[in-house]
Each structure stands twice: as C-alpha cells, then as structure tokens.
C-alpha cells in the first residue's frame, strides 16, 4: 500500500533517463534545444556558439568531478545529440570497460545500447569489418514483411507486434544482425506474395528456440518483450494513419499528390508528411520492385531510408544534414536503381539530374508504370535531401 503512495519507480531506458534529475543535465538540454532550434532557423553560426558553450559546460563539470560517472554520461549525451559519435564512443567504452566506475545492470545495458547505436550510425566505409552490418538495426516484420526499425514497438506498417517470447525471439532474428539486407528484401518480397516468414526462412522456429536457449539472448528477448508490453500503445504512430485521405480514408499513394486519387479530396499534407510518404514509397519499391543489389551502398541506402522514416514518423525529426548528404552520396555510389527485370533503369550517378531509361527488351507490362513511379519518388526524395524539409 505504501508503494502506491509514492508511485511506481519508472524504468529507465536511455542516458537521458539516467540523468533526468541532474541540474547540469537540464541546463545542457536547454542549450542543445536552443542550438537545434537555431539550426532550424538557419542560424548555423549562433547554433555553433551555443553548442560550444554547452560542451564547455559539460567538460567543466567533468573536470570538476572526474570520478562521477554521470559527468561522463552527460558528455556522451551531448556528443550523441549533436552527432559527434567519434567523441562519444571512447567515453562509453571507458565507462563500460575501464573498471573505474561502478555501473549497475540498468546503466550497463543502456550504455551498451548507446554504443551499438553509435557504431551502426557510421557510414559503411568507416565501419570495422567485424562491426554491425548496416547503418541501423532493421527488422523484417514477421507479420507483413515490411522493413522497420524497432522490434520493441509495433510495426509502423501493420501495427502488429510479437505476442509471445518465442515470437519476439523470431522477430529479433529477422534482422540485419542475422541476415544480409538483400536477404531481408527477398523475404519481404516473398511475404508480400502471401508466404509466411516461417515458410520462407528454413528453421526459423527452431532457430528461435535455439536463440532462447542462450541465457544472454533470453535476457535480451525478455527485456524487449517487456518493453513491447509496456509501450505497445504508448506514443505509437502508424504510417497508414498518416497517409490516409481525410475524405474517404483511402491511402494517398503519391508523395506529391494534390488530391486523393479516389475521392478527389484536397491533400493538405505538410512537407514532413510528404517526405514521409516519399520515403515509405521508396522503401516499398525497394522491397517489392527494385532489382536487389548486394553492394554496401545499396544496403546502406535501405538502412538509411528505414532510419529516416522511423525518425520522421515517430519523433517528427526531419532528416539531419548528415543523413541527407549521406543519402545523396549513396545514390551516387549506387550508380543506378533498376525496376524488376531491369525493364526501367534510373541513372542515379548525379542525383540532382536523374535519368530514366526504359529497356525495351527487358520491359514487362508494368515496367513503365513502376519505373515512372520510382523515378518521381526518387526525384522528390533528392529535392528533400538537397534542400531539407520545409515547415
């Protein structure tokens, strides 16, 4: 009864949660928010000044309290928030591995997660050979086959989430930690044609069981499952709702649509939703139509697209300059994106001047339709990556 009076202790999920009651952290967040706001107003120099001030604040605190783990965490949070992952990584490693700090299980788990996230966000050419594959962790939904970013939240495409520990283990396996991106795309394509994940992936059921038999894995699965149950409906956003026509409920197809193709209702989407629809369309095309390539650039492009879609949908966070530039670089590196059977080929070497070629000998009945769809969405995507998302 007495516990009820004080409320239940909330589970901490991030470094920010660990530092929440820390006054210097609160001031630091104020500075970071101000800098981010100034950046949105294109006042880059002033934003830089505010960030320098924030960095000074965090380093001064650390210099005064070198033995305090929270002082180190604060600097990690600062560097992660501003995208200076190279500087955040050694601090986390020191916290985790040096033995200088006593960390509890919760802190260790959160810091390990942050380290993994940072390592994944490195461009492909800067990743260690034994490092994690792909720009971010991506999963193939075991229900609908679409690619998404978080196994600990319902799928943003179909709202499904694992209902048992076993299903959670299988969902974790269907990720780029265990499969190449090209294999996940093939799985996605086969599932869209009506097959189930268990059917496409041999031994998935037994692999799931084997996975759970490793105590360390089981602990992770149980934690993910518990987060899923806790957060299933909390702050959930679904792509289908965002893309719905206000008149008839139909899914608005094209990112640049001015009106619903079914009922004619005007589509008054803000730029952020148009960008979201565009990235979702591109992802669908990569899953279902585009000739899958096994190059790093192609794989990373899929991952970056999933990550940016997730950030925009769930956090309303528009793609950062870094991610935008990286996306354009990946398009250049890919050289071309081809529709099925190479019936339509889009030259992406110069993303700002995309060219589409319809190859008569390899064209299928729908090559022109899908080729043009892909071309239009890529064109829109390039504009958003080059100029940024407007208000």
């Amino acid at each position: 009864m007495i516990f009820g009076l004080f409320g239940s202790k909330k589970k901490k999920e991030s470094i920010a949660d660990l530092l929440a009651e820390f006054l210097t952290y609160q001031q630091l967040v104020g500075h970071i928010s101000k800098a981010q706001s100034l950046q949105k107003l294109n006042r880059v120099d002033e934003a830089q000044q505010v960030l320098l001030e924030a960095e000074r604040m965090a380093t001064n605190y650390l210099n005064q309290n070198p033995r305090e783990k929270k002082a180190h965490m604060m600097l990690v949070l600062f560097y992660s928030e501003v995208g200076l992952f190279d500087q955040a990584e050694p601090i986390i490693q020191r916290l985790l591995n040096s033995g200088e700090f006593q960390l509890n299980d919760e802190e260790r788990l959160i810091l390990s997660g942050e380290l993994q996230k940072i390592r994944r966000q490195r461009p492909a050419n800067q990743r260690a050979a034994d490092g994690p594959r792909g720009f971010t962790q991506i999963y193939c939904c075991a229900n609908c086959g679409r690619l998404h970013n978080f196994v600990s939240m319902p799928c943003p495409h179909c709202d499904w989430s694992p209902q048992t520990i076993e299903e959670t283990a299988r969902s974790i396996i269907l990720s780029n930690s265990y499969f190449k991106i090209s294999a996940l795309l093939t799985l996605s394509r086969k599932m869209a044609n009506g097959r189930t994940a268990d059917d496409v992936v041999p031994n998935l059921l037994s692999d799931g069981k084997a996975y759970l038999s490793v105590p360390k894995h089981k602990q992770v699965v149980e934690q993910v499952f518990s987060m899923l149950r806790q957060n299933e409906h909390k702050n959930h956003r679904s792509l289908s709702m965002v893309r719905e026509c206000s008149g008839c409920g139909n899914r608005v197809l094209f990112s640049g649509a001015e009106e619903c193709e079914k009922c004619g209702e005007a589509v008054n989407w803000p730029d952020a939703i148009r960008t979201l629809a565009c990235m979702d369309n591109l992802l669908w095309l990569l899953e279902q139509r585009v000739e899958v390539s096994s190059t790093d650039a192609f794989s990373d492009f899929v991952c970056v697209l999933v990550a940016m879609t997730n950030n925009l949908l769930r956090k309303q966070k528009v793609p950062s300059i870094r991610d935008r530039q990286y996306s354009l670089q990946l398009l250049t590196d890919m050289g071309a994106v081809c529709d099925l059977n190479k019936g339509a080929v889009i030259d992406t070497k110069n993303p700002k001047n995309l060219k589409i070629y319809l190859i008569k000998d390899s064209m299928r009945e729908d090559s022109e339709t899908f080729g043009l769809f892909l071309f239009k969405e890529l064109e829109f995507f390039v504009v958003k990556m080059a100029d940024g998302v407007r208000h």
Partner: protein
Amino acid sequence: MPLAYQSTEELMEPVSKLKQVLVDDRTYSVMSVRNGGMGRGWLLEQTFDDSFDPIYRRRIAVKTFDFMKDERAIEHELNIWISLDHRSVLPLKKIGRLNYRLAAIMPLLDGSLDDVIEAKGSLNEQEVSKIISDIVDGLEYAWSTFKILHLDLKPSNVLVENSSPIRTKIADWGISRLAAENQQARGLKGKAASIAMYDQKTAYAEGTPLFMAPERFSGNWVLSPTADIYSLGMMAVQLNTGILPFRFGQVDPAEEISTGAFFENACQMIENRSEGFRRFCLQCIHPNPSERPSTFREVVTQLNSIATRGNK
C-alpha cells in the same frame, strides 16, 4: 483503437475535435486551444507518464503557425523570440513539431493578465506598478540589446505565474519589429536581421487596435518605444480600473482613438488615483507621442517613484 489519433484529418484540422496531438516523439492530450491571428496556442498535458524531460514537461504550451498566411512572418517571429533571453520574456524552449507541422514549445504558465482582470476585477496602484515595471524590464532588455519593439502588448500577451507578487512574462513577438536604423543589432545578424526587417511598411497596420497608439493608424509614424509605452499605459489603466477608456456601445472606439476622446475618458476614470499614478498613466497614453515618456528607462523611473511613495 489503441492509437493516438484517428486519421490524418484529425491530425491537421479541425482542432476543436482533437483530443490528442503529437509533439515531437510524445503524445499530449489537448487541454485547450486558442486561435490567434497567426496560428494557434495549445495547452497540453502528457497523455502517458513519460520520463522527465526539461523541455517536454508534463504540461506545456505550444504555438503552431498558419503557413498559408506568411511563411516569412513566422520565421521572423521565431528568429526574434529565440534571441530573447530574459526573466520577463516567455522563453521559447524549442522549435519542434506538432502533428508534423512546425511548432514553438514553451513552458505552460498559469494564465494571462486577462485572466487576472477577469478573476480580480482590478488591481491596486502598487500591484499595477509592479507588473508594468516587470514588463518594462523585458521591453527595455529587448530594445537595448536588439533594438526590438513588441508592438502588440495587451493583457492576453502577458502571461503570469501565480505567485505573490505576480510574476509576468511577455509573450507573442509575432509582429515585433527591429528599428530601421539598427539592422546590425547585436546578436541578430545577417539573415535574422534581414527577416526581422522584412516589412516595415505594414508595421503600422498590425496589432490590437484598442492597445495601439493613435499615430500607428496614420501610416507615417516612426518606430520608437513610445508605441509600446502607449500600450503599457492602456494596460495600466485597464488593470487598475478593470476597463479600457472607451465608451463601448455608445461611441465607435475608432472614432475615440482618432479624436483623442479616449484620453478624456481615462482622465475621468482615474481622477481619484494618486498624483504619481495618474500622471504616469496619462503621460503614457497621451495621443501625442512626444508627450509620452520617450524611453523605457524614463518609464522605470516614474514607476519607481510611484512604488516609493506607495511604500511611505
């Protein structure tokens, strides 16, 4: 349905039926929505018991903008607002997004001076002087630091924290202006300054007429603190008497502004107030701008002398 909202249409408009909105990565329940000229003000409360965050507090206020009107005007407001950092100015905590549209996130205060007038009817001279003094403090800061004038001062744009004495914060810098001769004002350089200068010609026509100095209707006035000082005087009269010096229903306020009749009304309304307070109010709302205090510092000096007398 376990989802935060029902459809895209509900995400966007009409707002009257909206029960929940998305603010960046959090879901908030709508406590109330107020429509303004440039957008909407949202008073929100966290739907879920999210972890503590210095920006996304349990209760927040958010302003969204009507981008169909003028995108530059919105950038202008945000540019001014984010530059202001003073205890008497409502802080802009973050530029984020509400339902995928640009939004300004700010702390939720207890209400505005409008609510104070509604609740208390009127305030005594010392209370009014303290409130006006706090506001002038913020205006003086904006003017001396950036050469910015507010130009839409009124009780609903001054937010209050319920405390004793009442603490105020100036909000809504939507039509504020940089003075023409100070494009290189400190801290607002380059783009921000040019945006802030975007439309000097229309500055005279914007604002809330009952709190706008008469010369602002003429179209050939020069930006100076006397415009804001007039609004301060009007607020002082309203806070002290509970009403504005217009004979609503009998005479068109526009006529009373153009003929200066409002000034005569005010003389009568506050004739039994202390000499210092009466002189302060009447000087501030004088139809002739050259008769008003010309600087915010002058206003502060006058207010200090009222407070000193009140203490004796």
